[in-house]
Every structure is written in C-alpha cells, then in structure tokens.
C-alpha cells in the first residue's frame, strides 16, 4: 500500500472513532460519566399523576434509594392531579420566558396527546432516550414503542411501563365462561342484563373510554391493521356511523339508560364495586390485582379480555426544555429501565399498576432473568391469562382519531 493510502485509511479510521467517541449521550453531555458527574448532589423533580399511593410509594421506595446510594441524587416526587397540569406548567414557563436550567420540572410521566403537545411546540429536551445505557433493553424497533399515538417518539421520551386495556368482572356474581369475548357478544350481554353495564365516556381525563370506543372501530371494520399509519379521514367516515349506531342501540339497556356515564376510572370502579354494574376496565397486566389490594374493588374481582383488539401501549418519561437538573433526569430515566427494577414493577407485592417498559427477551444477566421469571410467575389469579392478552394485543393509532372520536361521541351519542 502506498503511504498516501495508508494515511488516508488511518485518517478515515480515526475520524470514525472520533465520531464514535464524541457522539453525544444527550444534548450537552458527551459521555455517561459526564452525566453522572454533573448529577451528583442534585435533586431530581419528578412530576407524575399522584392519585395512586401504591405507585407513589413504589417510586419513592424503589427509585429513591438507588438514586441516592449510587448517584447521590435526591428524588423529589411531585404528585399532580393530571399530566396536563405539568404540560400547562411548562407552557406557562415558556410564556414567561423561562429558559436554560431555570424551569421547575425535570421529568414528566407522559404519553399520547400530552407528549405531542410538548414535542411539537419544541418544549422538550432531547433526543436523549437512545443515549441511556439501559436503552439497550428497550424494543425501539417495535412500532408500539417508537410511535406514541401514531407519532414518532424520536428519542424525546424514554419508556417506563406499559398497559393493555381489558376488563374486570366479579367472580362472586358472574363466571369467567359467561363473559363476552368481543363486542358482538357484549351487545348481547348488555341486552340480556339491562342496567348492568356502562363505559367511561370518551373525553378528556377518560382516555380509557376513548380506547374502548376505538376498539369497536377495529372490530366492526374487520381489523386494526388498516387503521395503523397516518389519519385516514375516509376510513373514519366509513365506519363512524356504524359505531355510533351500535352505541346508541345499547343506550336503553345501559346503566342509567345512558343518561350519564362515568368520567374516569375511579367512578367506574366505584359503580362496579358497589354492585351497580358488573364490569369495569383495567390496564394492568395483573388485571384486578392492584385495585383488589387497594380495596377499591371487591376481593373476588378478576380479569378477562376479548380475544382480539385489546389496545396496549407504553408510557414514558419526558424532560422539559428548561429542566433544572437535566443530568439527574437522565440518570432517573435510566434507573427505571434497570431489569431488576422493571421486574419489581410487575411483582404484585410492590403494588405497581402497570407492565413492562423493556423487552424481557433482551435481558441476559442472571439477576435480571431470574427477577423477570419470578415476576412473570407471580401475577396472581386476579390476572387474565397472559397468552390471551398477548394474542389480543394491538397498538394504538394516530392521535387525530382521539379528538375526533371524543368530539363525535359527544355529538352523536351523548347529545343525540
């Protein structure tokens, strides 16, 4: 080889390595060690829905301790009434001209429309998710992970846990075999049991209700696949009238004859627990487990799923553009992806609500695998069969459908 060629090759190789080495972990941080150093001694302000003391306790106990011990970061968990409140806070700070490191929020538990609101208004810090060491456990190639309500995540949020819509029933009142397994059978069940069913109204604060209605679209139109991808007005307009017709046909036999609907999970569980209706909704892999332990559903409550069209998705942590402790935030987002802690999430004894944020298949360490196996075997009998859930799993669809469904439901079903 000529000298010139050697030099050229060397130059290319060193450039290549230089690029690797200087690839940023996240904006402003060249390496993970930089992140750890910058975060040491800081506080991290974590804003998340505070309505479940079980989830609150989990975060305080399982993340607070390792953050302090391993990284000298103090956890400050802030419970909020709804994610949109954190969104509004970031928005207000932007309006007041707060930039740099002068905001008040470090991390928000977020997904869907709230995420999109912040992302499209450039109010998020990132991309950071791929730079986390534990992101190797995340199934980033899975559209259910890299798309949030049909919108690209682009590394601006990092997964925490997952949830899948399905149902609860009371084994003291009904049998597992009698529960309907699709909307067709549900329609029959409703007319056979007048006044014993209702659903959460699709609307703000009731996205579970919107999910319930979306699934009807999937079933009536023959499948979810055609709904994946960008918003399709034609498709929507083709099936919407049939969906409203179905929901209106239920009305006379619904609880309260459809005069009013529960607005959120809490109201729905209360109706179910007090014997006013016979089904409720859940999104936890443990089915009725979390609410049974909390005492908001009767101890005989169990879960069941339809055999198809049960929407599941992920929820994430995002960092606002003006977060005061960005390095600590990155550390936190990484800690929650730790396989042993992810397994702790799923363990019933720890009372957490939701499912895996990582892909368990990607975990290879002995500790991790053991913890995961233990959790999987322990889900409890208030859970539905995980195989049924997995086969029924479909991803959520483009965000435009959300608002459309909510508005049209109000116009076509509620207001008639």
């Amino acid at each position: 080889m000529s000298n010139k060629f050697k030099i050229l090759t060397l130059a290319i190789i060193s450039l290549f390595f230089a690029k690797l080495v200087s690839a940023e972990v996240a904006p402003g941080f060249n390496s993970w060690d930089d992140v750890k150093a910058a975060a040491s001694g800081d506080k991290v302000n974590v804003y998340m829905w505070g309505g479940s003391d079980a989830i609150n306790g989990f975060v305080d106990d399982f993340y607070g301790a390792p953050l302090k011990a391993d990284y000298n970061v103090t956890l400050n968990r802030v419970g909020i009434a709804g994610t949109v409140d954190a969104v509004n806070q970031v928005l207000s700070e932007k309006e007041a001209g707060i930039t740099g490191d002068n905001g008040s929020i470090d991390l928000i538990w977020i997904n869907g429309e709230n995420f999109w609101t912040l992302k499209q208004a450039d109010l998020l810090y990132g991309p950071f998710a791929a730079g986390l060491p534990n992101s190797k456990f995340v199934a980033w190639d899975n559209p259910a992970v890299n798309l949030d309500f049909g919108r690209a995540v682009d590394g601006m949020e990092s997964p925490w846990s997952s949830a899948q819509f399905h149902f609860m029933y009371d084994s003291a009142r009904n049998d597992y075999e009698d529960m309907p397994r699709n909307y067709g059978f549900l329609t029959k069940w409703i007319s056979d049991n007048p006044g014993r069913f209702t659903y959460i109204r699709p609307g703000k604060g009731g996205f579970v209700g919107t999910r319930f209605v979306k699934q009807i679209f999937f079933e009536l139109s023959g499948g979810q696949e055609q709904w994946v991808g960008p918003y399709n007005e034609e498709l929507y307009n083709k099936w919407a009238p049939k969906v409203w017709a179905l929901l209106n046909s239920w009305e006379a036999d619904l609880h309260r004859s459809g005069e009013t609907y529960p607005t959120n999970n809490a109201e729905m569980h209360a109706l179910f627990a007090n014997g006013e209706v016979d089904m409720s909704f859940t999104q936890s892999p443990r089915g009725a487990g979390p609410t049974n332990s909390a005492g908001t559903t009767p101890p005989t409550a169990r879960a069941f799923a339809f055999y198809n069209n049960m929407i599941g998705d992920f929820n994430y942590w995002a960092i606002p553009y003006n977060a005061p402790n960005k390095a600590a935030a990155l550390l936190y987002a990484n800690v929650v992806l730790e396989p042993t802690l992810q397994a702790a999430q799923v363990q019933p004894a720890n009372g957490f609500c939701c499912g895996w944020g990582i892909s368990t298949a990607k975990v290879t360490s002995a500790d991790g695998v053991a913890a995961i196996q233990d959790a999987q075997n322990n889900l409890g009998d208030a859970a539905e069969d995980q195989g049924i859930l997995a086969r029924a799993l479909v991803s959520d669809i483009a965000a435009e459908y959300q608002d459309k469904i909510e508005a049209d439901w109000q116009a076509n079903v509620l207001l008639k």
Partner: protein
Amino acid sequence: MENTLKKTNIYAVYLGALILILPLIAFFINAFSFRWFYPQLIPKELSLQAWVRLKLIPKEGFRSLDGFLDLWLSNPTIIKALVNSVTIGVIVTIVSIIIALPAARVLGLLNFRFKKLIIFIMVSPTILPPIAFVLGLNINFISWGFSGSFWGVCLVHLVPIMPYVVLTMTGIFANYNPDFEHQARTLGANKFRTFYLITLPAIAPGMVVAALFAFLVSWSQYLLTFLIGAGKIMTLPLLVFSTASSGNPALTAAISIVFIFPAIVILYFTSKFVSGDSSATSGFGKI
C-alpha cells in the same frame, strides 16, 4: 315574648341537623373501613389501613410513641402538607388583617367619592371565578420569579382573602362609634393607647370573625396553591384533590377528616364571637 315553639318546628330543626350531619358520619365510617361496599351499612372490615397508607399511623407492630414520631419525622407528604397549610394560613391571616384594618376603618366611617366603586373592586375576587385570573397570574408570577416559592403562594392567597376581611371589618366599623376615641384623646391618651384600650376591644370580636374567614379561605385554596406553587409547595387541599382522584373512598374520607378537623375546632372556639352579640356580620347589611 312567647317562648313556645311549635313541636313541628323543633322536629324540623332536628331533622335538618340530622341531614346536615349525615355526610360527616359517612366520612367517619369510611375512613376506618376497608372494602365498604354496598349493601353493607356497617362495614364488615374495620381497619386503620387508610390511615397507614396516608402515613399518619405506623404499620402494625410499630405503634409505639417512638413509632409515631419516627413516621412523622420522616416527613411524609401529609405532614409537609399540614405544616404548610397551617403556616400559610396563619401568615396570611395576620397580614390580611393588618392591611385591611386602615382600609376598613376608612370605608366604614367615612364617606367619599368612588366609595361604592372601591368597595366593588375589593369584593370582586369573590364574585369572579378563580379560573378567570389564576392562569394569567401564574404567568406573571413565573416571570417575576415568585413561582414555586412559599412567599409567592402566601402573596397570592391574599387575593381571595382580602374581600372577606375587608368586608367583615368594614361592617364592624360601620357600627362603630368613634366618639369613645375622641373622649379618650381629650382625656390625654395618645394614639397607641387609644387604639389599644378603646378601639381594639371594641373591634376584637369582628376581627376574630374576619380572621376566621381569612384562615378558612386560605386553608381551602386549591387552584391558586397548585398553579403558583408549581408543585413545590404541598398543601392539604392539593393532597385531598389528588387522593380523591384515586377514587379510594377510605383514603379520601381519611384525608378529608384531617382536612376539616382543624377548621371545625377553630369554628367551635370562635362560635362564641359569631352567634353572640356581634356587630361583625350585621355590618353585611350596611354595604
């Protein structure tokens, strides 16, 4: 004056009292129950679980004096919220009375142009829904650097409190006769002695009523504390709201009891001033 009362009137009052107290009874039962679902009238499972989960009472086996102290000193959210609510309430009560006193005196005793307009302005925060001004205020506070600060929250609590305090104290002064002060001055007392010996005792009952209103209004502020505090200042109403959103009746009942208990105690002790011969609230009519 005939003191006989129709029996029906008395029973009607008893019935009214019973209805008024029913929700409280429901709260108490709920707070000490677990899984109190229909149709149980008496809970099948009585338990302290709600209080343990709120971190007010230690778990089984730790319920010694040490256990309690350990739990409370670990500064769980509820203790933070209690301390903040009390501190803010006391501070804004005192500050609002000091600010309102001169204004109330002037409004109650004197007549001048624009007096009605000024009273209207003073009262307006009670009339307009909080949501109309709170979001805008939040932006301003953020840019002035008050957002998320304890003093910012205190400052903003003054807004809903001032109308009640000013109104009540104006009522006092409207019924007040300044002649006694003049008498004292002519007898040689200076301004401070006059205030301390003559004015203060006369307006004290009214001041107590005003303080009661002020504290209660601050105690139950949700939207203001939530927005201006930016999540950093935790108070009881915030905790009540987020607990209520969980839909757990036992927890909600327990924290509601904590929330209303101090207020009831205060009401009990000051009820002497309020149901007695008080010119404070009669001043309402003079406005």
